[in-house]
């Protein structure tokens, strides 16, 4: 250091050593960057940007922002409890007229309808009415057309939807809404999502535990068998892994049907048919089957690396077979168990096709509702909020897992 402080070191041809080193390193760094760039771009384009878009969609008033500006301004002074004044009605009429000319009035009606059931038809008829009118007063016309226009809740909904951002989708995803006095729970007949999340985590948890109970002994068998037999067994384990998810789910559909082979067998033996398809039972059985390799393989790979001499040493030190297994072998498999279970649990949270095909209406998981809002309702905001909440809960669980177990202890292979 002392030398470097006095004068920079030079290479033989007189250039500063530091500059030379930086130049020599630069090409290496560029090469390294070049190697990761394709994947980085891929992840950016296909994962990070859509994730950001999804988050944005879940908080923005896409259908109404910029189309209810007059109304928004007119309602800015409104107390939120009474029927608004003529100015507000006139502003809404003007906004609807403008929207009708751009053929966007239906969008507004749809957006308000999310929060105020039945609003879509009222909006359509009043839009038709006001389009024909040249001047006001509008308030009487509105109230004459339908007394719903005198409901402060409808006007609150309009005010909330006219801004740029909304918390509606997020609140609705956890069964909450803006009421007259701040946040309130939605009526019980509309509250579904908390139940759906609970169900999603419950099914994922049960499937994870089942795959562990079923997979652990198989992994142990595979890890302790001689290579040729282990390879054969491995093919049986991997076979479902190599088959398409949809094909496997369809196979379960066929097996579990009331006229399916399992029920035929049951009828022969106990003279009774069981309801297995479209039940929670069917969902869990099919998911457990599909997830089994994901839990098993990390455990297997960890077990494969535990030298057999460890158990032998424990035996020679005086431990019985079970004691040796439990105190010496099992603790060493924990990183594999953690990895396998975390993998299965997180994959289970996102299950869609299997519950949709073999589960009943009460067995659908969050992904089903995401798809439902995307494909059937075309309500991207709700779908995005549901997905984002699932992502956040998963990340919190991952964080908790990392705190408790330590992610560096996890071994995938």
């Amino acid at each position, binding site marked *: 250091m002392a030398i470097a402080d006095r004068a920079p070191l030079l290479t033989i041809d007189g250039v500063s050593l530091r500059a030379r080193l930086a130049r020599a390193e630069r090409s290496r760094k560029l090469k390294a960057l070049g190697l990761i760039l394709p994947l980085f771009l891929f992840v950016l384009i296909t994962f990070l940007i859509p994730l950001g878009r999804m988050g944005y969609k879940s908080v923005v008033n896409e259908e109404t922002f910029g189309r209810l500006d007059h109304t928004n301004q007119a309602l800015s002074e409104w107390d939120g409890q009474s029927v608004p004044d003529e100015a507000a009605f006139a502003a809404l009429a003007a906004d609807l007229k403008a929207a009708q000319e751009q053929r966007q009035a239906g969008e507004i009606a749809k957006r308000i309808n999310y929060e105020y059931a039945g609003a879509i038809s009222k909006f359509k008829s009043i839009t038709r009415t006001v389009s024909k009118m040249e001047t006001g007063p509008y308030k009487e016309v509105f109230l004459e057309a339908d007394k719903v226009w005198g409901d402060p809740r409808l006007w609150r909904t309009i005010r909330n939807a006219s801004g740029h951002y909304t918390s509606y989708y997020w609140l609705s995803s956890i069964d909450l809404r803006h009421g007259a006095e701040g946040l309130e729970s939605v009526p019980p007949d509309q509250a579904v999502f908390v139940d759906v999340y609970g169900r999603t985590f419950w099914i994922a948890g049960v499937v994870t535990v089942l795959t562990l109970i079923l997979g652990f002994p198989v992994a142990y068998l595979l890890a302790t068998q001689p290579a040729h037999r282990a390879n054969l067994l491995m093919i049986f384990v991997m076979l479902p892994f190599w088959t398409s998810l949809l094909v496997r789910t369809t196979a379960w559909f066929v097996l579990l049907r009331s006229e399916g082979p399992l029920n035929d067998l049951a009828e022969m033996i106990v003279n009774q048919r069981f309801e297995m398809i479209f039940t929670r039972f069917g969902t869990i059985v099919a998911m457990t089957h599909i997830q089994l390799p994901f839990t098993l393989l990390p455990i297997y790979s960890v077990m494969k690396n535990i*030298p057999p*001499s460890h158990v032998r*040493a*424990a*035996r*020679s*030190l005086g431990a*019985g077979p079970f004691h040796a297994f439990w*105190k010496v072998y099992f*603790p060493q498999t924990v990183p594999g168990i953690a990895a396998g279970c975390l993998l299965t649990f997180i994959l289970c949270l996102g299950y869609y096709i299997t519950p949709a095909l073999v589960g009943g209406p009460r067995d659908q998981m969050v992904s089903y509702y995401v798809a439902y809002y995307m494909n059937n309702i075309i309500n991207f905001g709700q779908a995005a909020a549901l997905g984002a909440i699932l992502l956040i809960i998963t990340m919190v669980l991952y964080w908790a897992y990392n705190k408790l177990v330590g992610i560096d202890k996890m071994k995938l292979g």
Partner: protein
Amino acid sequence: MKPFNFRIDSKAELGSYKKVRHVEARANETFRRSSKVSAYREGVGLKRMSTSGSAFVNFIDVQKSYDGETLVVKDLNLPIRRGEFLTLLGPSGSGKTTTLMMLAGFEVPTHGRIELDGREINNVAPHKRNIGMVFQNYALFPHMTVEENLAFPLAVRKLSKADIDRKIENALAMVQLSQMRKRRPAQLSGGQQQRVALARALVFDPKLVLMDEPLGALDKQLREHMQLEIKHIHQSLGVTVVYVTHDQGEALTMSDRVAVFNDGAIQQLASPADLYEHPQNSFVAQFIGENNRLSGIVTELNGSHCRVKVGDAGEIRALPVGISNVGAKTTLSLRPERVRINPGDGACANQFEARVEELIYLGDHTRARVQVLGHANFVIKVPNSEGVPDLEPGSTIRIGWRAEDCRALDAF
């Protein structure tokens, strides 16, 4: 094949290991005085046991086959004395590890009986045999600290917490690792892990300790240090040790007796000195130490002497060991350090002209490869001391050896 030992050094009549053993004896003396081991000995209440007496471990007609077609261990009869350090030495696949595993209880003999302290243990589970074992790669439990590793056999035996603590302390002091109690195996060097494994195998005071190539993973210097350390611990505790290795230097350094295994059978069971000085067959002669081999046919056999015709070149007088009749093929075994250069007339029964082919300087001695009796790979060890003639490659010298030093063994 490795040369006998780096320590081989002189023309001395006795094998150089004797010298080594002499040095060791002195080292043992000082070591025994050291408080650590004696404290351990008192702590565990062990007394030095007699090495004589009836067999402590006994293999009786033991055979082992894994596939029902070939025998890995053939008709093994091996009595092991109480307090003895016995080494099973042999090349890989010779059955030595299988023998050890049968004794530990991890393999079941296909035929025969194994007795421990007069009791048949064929059907005793490994954890009920009370045998300490040190494994090749130590088999320390990676998820436990040193302390927990050592506590494992004691906790299984339901000792009180105070007893466990005291025994751990004594055992760690014995291997000089007292300050490592809280470390995990991964935080220890190879040598330290080895010591922990040793302490763990001894901490519950087994009467018998098995070691399966415990020093194989260590570097040469550490290995030699640990050889002496294990030997000293054995001597001070008086436990019976059965040690498996393929390193003959290790076997000779440490053992009271060595069983040389080959092809599933014991080739010779003897003390290290006996093995080196009096190999009973050409496998042992070749496996233990360095050895000049000359093939020939017996032409004369009378009691303690015989003559063997080697090629067309000449006849050698030798000591008959593994031959039965005139006309039989034999392999003559002659240690390189027993060959004398320019022997006086009548000093050696065998004297021949030899041509020096190659000289390799090795510090304390020089290896001379000479051509004699048509053999080009005949090796002589010439000590680098005064009065030894300088040799030149290509020159012709006169060499000789005594008939007693040249053993006529079975044809190899």
